[in-house]
């Protein structure tokens, strides 16, 4: 792929986003929608720039990020650990598989009231919800990645006298890394979504709370700002994960 093709792709990709903003502006300009319901894009972006410098909005962003990172980290650690264990040991596999089959399709948001009653309205319940939701895709892709590691690699390591524990960390984990990172990417998107929802349901701070406050007072402009912010946060975090991926997977044939 040459540089020119990439430039064309990027330009082509910007078209629908530009169109979206244009239609948005057009709808307002031609008076198809009243400005109280659909504020013009310029106003929203200006409000956003103004909010980004305000202390309270920055506190909201930080609260959201804290919950997102805490939940996502727990999900990554637990997901990779359980996924690897299930792929390596048949006994653990037999125990984990049916439990995951039941828990994975369960809508975790429905568990949120129970978490609220048990863990309170603070950070804990939200972090637990994020971790519970983001864990399963990571667990499943770790399990999948680790269970298709080529047996010959493991045999070669054993023939070279590598102890079983070292095989796990030096052979299986790196070989499963592409699949694990794909799972982490899905888990990250889920974390963004879930943390926002949890904050919308009950919270005193965070981006989700900012949206709900705006909705209750019919401030349409302020409703768009948190949504655009979480979309940008998702994009930035996704970019960081992509960078981590190409660093971790340097030397892999195709990523």
């Amino acid at each position, binding site marked *: 792929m040459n540089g020119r093709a990439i430039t064309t792709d990027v330009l082509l*990709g910007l078209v629908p986003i530009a169109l979206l903003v244009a239609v948005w502006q057009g709808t307002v300009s031609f008076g198809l929608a009243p400005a109280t319901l659909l504020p013009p894009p310029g106003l929203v972006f200006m409000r956003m720039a103004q909010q980004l410098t305000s202390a309270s909005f920055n506190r909201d962003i930080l609260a959201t990020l804290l919950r997102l990172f805490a939940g996502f980290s727990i999900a990554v650690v637990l997901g990779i650990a359980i996924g690897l264990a299930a792929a390596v040991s048949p006994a653990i596999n037999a125990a984990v598989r049916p439990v995951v089959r039941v828990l994975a399709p369960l809508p975790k948001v429905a568990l949120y*009231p129970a978490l609220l009653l048990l863990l309170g309205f603070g950070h804990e319940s939200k972090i637990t919800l994020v971790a519970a939701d983001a864990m*399963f895709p990571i667990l499943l892709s770790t399990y999948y990645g680790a269970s298709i590691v080529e047996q010959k690699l493991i045999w070669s390591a054993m023939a070279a006298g590598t102890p079983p524990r070292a095989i796990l960390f030096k052979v299986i984990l790196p070989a499963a890394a592409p699949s694990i990172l794909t799972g982490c990417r899905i888990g990250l998107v*889920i974390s963004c979504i879930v943390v926002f929802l949890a904050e919308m349901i009950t919270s005193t701070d965070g981006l989700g709370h900012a949206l709900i406050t705006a909705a209750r007072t019919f401030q349409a402009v302020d409703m768009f700002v948190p949504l655009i912010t979480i979309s940008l946060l998702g994009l930035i975090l996704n970019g960081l994960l992509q960078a981590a991926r190409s660093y971790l997977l340097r030397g892999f044939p195709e990523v």
Partner: protein
Amino acid sequence: MTLRTLIERLAPLLACVGLLTLWQVAALGLNNDSFPTALDSVRAVPAILGDKEALINILASLRRMAIGFAAAVLVSIPLGLLMGRSRGVASFFNPLLMVIYPVPKAALMPIIMLWLGVGDLSKTLVIFLGVSLPVIYHSFEGAKAVEEKMLWSGAAMGLSAMQRLIRIVLPAALPEILTGCRTGLVLALITMVTSEMIARQSGAGNILFNALDMGQYDTVYAMIIIIGAMGICLDAAFERMRERLVRWSEPQFDIPLSFS
């Protein structure tokens, strides 16, 4: 049927029973008013399902979910397949999809409510949005991975581009598409619950969160059990259908990826 396959069949059921037992023990141990035992909660389920109004609410939820899901699948699969086969279409839509992916669809509910009201239309629209992204993504990945040689053979035999898309790309991408649909199904349920939580008017989510606000903890936990059971049953039914449709393909993930 040997004992081994019998145990394998029953394993999910055993897991359910195990989790409920764990819950029972934890509740007895904590002895907390806001955390009833599993037994009490299960006992409250028939009362909800027997109540006519609650039943109508739950069925209304399911109807919205079915409509939103069906519409999303019908739109997303062709779009995903086109994106997978044409570089231009892919680079046209990809950035837009990347921008809207991390936005929680249920969070659009307050804005959509302003335009379309609190009725069925806005809730169905939110479910539609939530389901379409994973289905588009998986159809895209599936269509991208179709072997070129098959398409060349098809072209050599005189199939038009449209026919190639339907007769070669669609079946070849079907396992991946169905993985996306399965994710979408779980997502539809989650979006359904959250959209009803925001627009408290009718539906299963409405019952759940109203009970939470009024402190009827039995109902809260019973609704959690009902919604959980809905998720597990729908998933199992979908899995049956998938096995029939793509018997020729080895399942990649035999447990679904759940989204929110």
